[in-house]
């Protein structure tokens, strides 16, 4: 389970960050995760393209990811994606409709990153720890 690093938000995080087994990275800071989930960073340090999967904006796990780990509100993230897409800077992440679809996508696509409730038991994906900034 990941532990949140901000003293002001010192509480148990209810989300775990997961990636496809092809991803070698096992630790990222909130700032690095923000850049990945806001679609600014598009490849892993190995050069492998990143494929970002997210749940719907209203999904509780997505809201927890934004507030607890990325330190931003879901509407901010949505506005950032809109700005990237309509000004040529980037693309939207792939929005999946359920946690089952998230799990299947993370297993299927090389370079994929996503998240699931911390209580989910996963054995065959890369677990990414959230480290201090």
């Amino acid at each position, binding site marked *: 389970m990941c532990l949140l690093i901000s003293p002001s938000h010192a509480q148990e995080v209810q989300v775990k960050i997961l990636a496809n087994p092809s991803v070698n990275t096992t630790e990222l800071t909130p700032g690095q995760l923000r850049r990945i989930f806001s679609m600014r960073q598009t490849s892993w340090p190995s050069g492998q393209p990143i494929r970002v999967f997210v749940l719907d904006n209203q999904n509780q796990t997505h809201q927890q990811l934004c507030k607890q780990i990325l330190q931003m509100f879901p509407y901010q993230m949505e*506005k950032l994606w809109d700005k990237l897409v*309509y000004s*040529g800077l980037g693309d*939207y992440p792939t929005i999946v409709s359920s946690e089952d679809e998230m799990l299947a996508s993370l297993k299927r696509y090389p370079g994929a990153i996503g998240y699931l409730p911390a209580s989910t038991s996963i054995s065959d994906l890369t677990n990414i720890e959230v480290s201090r900034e």
Partner: protein
Amino acid sequence: MNHYDRYSFYLILLIGVVTSSIVTAEEISWHGFIAQGVIKADKNNFVEDDGSTSLKLTEIGLNASYRINSRLRVAGQGVYLNGGNRYEEGPRIDYLFLDVSLLNTEKWHVNLQLGRNKNYQWLYSSTRDIPHTRPSIILPQSIYFDVFRDVALGSDGAALLLNTTNSMGEWDLNWRYGTSPIAGGQTKNLLGEIAEGKLDQKYDHHLNVFWRPNFANMQMGISLLDAKFRYKSATDEILVDGKTRSQRVMLNFLYHSENWDIAAEVMKERVRQEGALSPGFFNDSTAEGGYLQGRYFVNSSLTLLARVDLFDRDRKDRNGINLEKLTGGTVPRYFGFMDSATLGLSWDFAKNWRVHSEFHRVKGTGRLAPIIIPNTELNTDKYWNIWAIEVMHWF
């Protein structure tokens, strides 16, 4: 729309059709938007010459991005806009560039864009034509001056975009150099109906920094702009050759809370004009302006907006008295400023559908076209209103 824009517009469509047929759906991505509204700006020519209710609030766009490999990407967006007198009606290329990823590490991202790139330097400048990304239908005119829209939107040239993080937070540094094509219609919008010559931008040099401190939910920024224009008069016209230099400094601020946000931008712009109106004409003045905007998110689909926007054409003549004197009384003093208060309401009534309505109470006509030779016949009132409602869909 000039020939270059027309050519580029059809080129982007052609590229889109061809690439979509030869590459897989995963390599190319498409998005777009369509919006139609009703607008009325009474007592002046902001939208219609007679101030009547108008359907000239149409915005349509389609964009595509194709990743050639991990370092190269092509992106373009074509739009059709009709805003009445606010800017020239027609299709145009919003952006079309080759993006080169120079550095992509965990700490640094550096990209070079070559082609027609966007103005990423202000809070809403990069997506000012995308209805659902704007806080309001009409943006605060002190900063997002519609008459100057095409010039402020971006330029043909090069842009360098740096993004990094350190212990203080996240930083963006954007640099851009190029020129913006100015269509004939916009020349008249800027100079006046009598202008028959050609207005060209010699260069547009832009630099800005955004800083987002860690865990603060805020962003602060500073932006510097230096641009030079040249007017080449036509034979047998009243105007003469001239040149203008514009230098702008801007500060901006954003703060996000869970249910509300605040945005503010202020600017100071020095404009030096030589010639154009007459061979010996010279004017050196500094305009000031800015806005403070608050939004309240009632729930996930309903947003309220309130904003105050202030603009003075010359900081040494805030009430326009000198302007009136210098023109022998032909230009009323209310052309020296333009202040407004705005209330707005947005409702997301279905996924990717929104209806937005707003009302502006305006004092002054300092940001109405044309700028250099104001239209005093159509703009006879110091106080006026705008209301608008627009339905938008994006995909």
